[in-house]
């Protein structure tokens, strides 16, 4: 992957994290859609980046041990292993971003044609 793509991915990741932080979860599909619309990058990059961005936001609280306790208790609440919920969270963001980017990309391509 070229440096430029990595940087673009990094900027998108920061955008996803900042968008979520300040605007909420809908920032993910909106930013991903715009990303797809504006670039020719593969949609899976958006998915991967969104999952990573949410993962980083989750890990911000790892140090206190509170997240570990929360993962365990939430898993118990929903009768699933705790890590499943973490996985669902990351996949939810990744799925939203991939699908929105893919649609954005398709519309962008259609407009360019």
């Amino acid at each position: 992957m070229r440096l430029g793509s990595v940087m673009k991915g990094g900027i998108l990741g920061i955008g996803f994290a900042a968008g979520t932080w300040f605007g909420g979860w809908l920032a993910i599909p909106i930013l991903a859609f715009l990303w797809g619309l504006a670039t020719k990058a593969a949609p899976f990059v958006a998915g991967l980046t969104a999952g990573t961005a949410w993962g980083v936001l989750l890990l911000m609280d790892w140090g206190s041990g509170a997240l570990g306790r929360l993962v365990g208790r939430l898993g118990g609440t929903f009768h699933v292993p705790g890590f499943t919920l973490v996985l669902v969270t990351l996949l939810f963001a990744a799925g939203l971003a991939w699908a929105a980017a893919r649609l954005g990309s398709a519309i962008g391509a259609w407009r360019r044609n």
Partner: protein
Amino acid sequence: MTRRSAGNLTALVLLAVLLILGRFRLGPVPPLGHFLDPAHGVWAVAAGAELPDSAAGGVPNLSEPVRVLFDDRGVPHIFAQTRLDAIRALGYVVARDRLFQLEIQAKAGAGRLTELLGPRLLPLDRETRRLGLPDAAELKFEAAKRAPAGVEALNAYAAGVNAWIDHLRPSDVPLEYHLLGRRPARWRPIDAIHLTNRMGYTLSFNGDDLTHEEAAAAVGRAAADALFPVNSPIQEPIQPNGSGAPRFDFTRLPPPGRGEGDLLSGAFREESDAIGSNNWAVMPWRTANHRTLLAGDPHLQLTLPSIWYEVHIVVPDSLDVYGVTIPGLPFIILGFNRDVAWSFTNTESDVLDRYVETVDDSTRPERYLVDGAWRPLRIRFDNYYGPDKSVLATDTLRFTHRGPLSLVGGRWMSTRWTALESPMQPGLLLEAAAAASVAEWQRAMARYAVPAQNMIVADRDGHIAIRSTGRFPIRPGDGRGDLLRDGSTSAADWLGDWPLESYPAANDPKQGYLASANQQPIDPRISPRYLGSNWYAPWRALRINQLLRADSAATPETMMRYQTDPGSPRADLFVPAFVAAGRKADDPGPRKAAELLAGWDRRYTRENTRAVLFEAAMDELSRRTWDELGAGPRPSSAILAQLLADSSSAWWDDHWTTPVERRDAILRAALGAALSKTVSSLGEPDGERWRWDRNRHANIYHLLRIPALSALGLPIEGGISTVNPSSGGGEEGASWRMVVELGPEVRAWGTYPGGQSGNPASSRYLDRLPRWLEGTLDTLRVPRSETDLRGHVRSVLTLESAR
């Protein structure tokens, strides 16, 4: 369709599905978008789980900034310049740690749980409203508003709670709201009254009259009077009677007779013997270091988070009080200051009467008859709302001049109950908290009304006192409240309240100590006046008195040990009877069971392997003895003990069999059946499965009863009627244990099951549980100033006045 088109279609469908799942609740699954959002959703709860090193907040109308130092046990020490500032800060810190608990408890008292939890809570809300609790709260609040001093504390507390709510960050929203998909509601001053009413319900609602009626319908009034008596057959009263030993008033029980009255099947049930609270105080001349000692351990339903929140409040020259408060109430309930310590047990007095009313319409009454004239019922229509504000149901609530009217067993009955009438009194405990002596403390609490409590208090000068304090009604006629009353005559109405000087009480007794454990407060030979009936069996009281009488050099350590003492006067009384009868049995089963019990030290330790057999035998004995009562209420084990002294009583006879059984035959049958059942469920007696801690557990449920947020199956010491009693379901227990030594410097120890934080992700959610299970207490830090706490401060909160 090309691969690209198929991919685009897949993306479109996936996006639509994820957006729908993200935006809308599907059954029990909350909207996933907000829920999973790591910055605003459920994961953010982790960020708010631990106390920050420092924080700042704003609370309206603070006269001066307030500093709150959280110590290494998570206890806030509030340093304020005025009492009202301290109350505002208390509201703020309680909301910070227990916001969901505040709302759910208040909604439970207000009969509005459906608004938070949905329609499945409708039956509970209906029950609350039909009892008249929310209606009474509204009337009390209106009355309180007429005396502004009364609501000042409630308003200040609400300001503190709402200051926290108004500035909630995503990480401050409790987990439960994320699970429910709701937002916290603002706190209203009246919510404190709803909460107090709920406590009044827990501690003073009783069905003695219904129990008596049901028993009379099965075995006649004379037998019902004896089985559910006004006076306990074992006297070890709270107010010492001077005898220095328990007295056993074991008279012959009248035989079962013909049923009288209408059957009120299952109208009311309450579990006796299984739960209860303790407190005691020892004068300096009976303690090792000649300082006054006080111990208290109220037993209540155990929940996560705990019903209690530990706090220390310092207001210069005004207040320096440490103890536990109930989230939602603007004062410390049980605790101590530098001079005085206090603790409560429930008085178990009868402060509720039911009146059988004559109404004009058996289905939709509008009037009721009193002294030959019809009076209009007060009628209100109540709506129950769902979380989405939709109306779930509407009820018509009716009230006579006595209280709420409801159908019980096909009869319209109104309920008069002190809990519905007595005002909220936030000022009393605040005033008492500043007392410098037992006398001052008792003066401050003299007007206390509901729920009636056995209030023990001790001071640094060596004085101790106890008083059963509360509003006790004076009834007409024989004064009894354990019988249904005729509502058609005003002559059945209460005549007034007991004067303070008649309350059961004792100060600085000759015996050098005082104790209470929910037993009958006063020896009927000293005061025959009706205070209640069907008292808790006094086994815990017997054991506490036994321990304190034998200890002439008490220490804080012995006090702590006594709080979890596994000894059982109940087992001491019944086991010898079982053993004597069983050893004479022809059958091997009862003989073997008798030998097994004979080898038991009668202590409910974790490792003992005989208590399971004894409890099974007691259950069998009770079931077989009281067979005439059918599925109705069973008398307490104190009555069974009384019956034990009469080997030929007609009660021993199994009325389903032709031969006439006597005591020993029933004891043997109970033993045989108990052994057989225990072996069948737990295997042979020598196995580990007979261990008490394999069979008796504490189960501390989260307020939403979510197992993953609860602490379940905790092995414990203690059993039915030990000083540290445990119930079958394990949901009740010592909700707070405290020992205080009042010397030149106050020293105190305490703990409760759970932790200060209501956040299940917090290290402070369950941190106190291991020591509670061990029966050990933490040393409480009682700094006079902020500097005294140096080296033990975990977090500092500064509150300033905000608009």
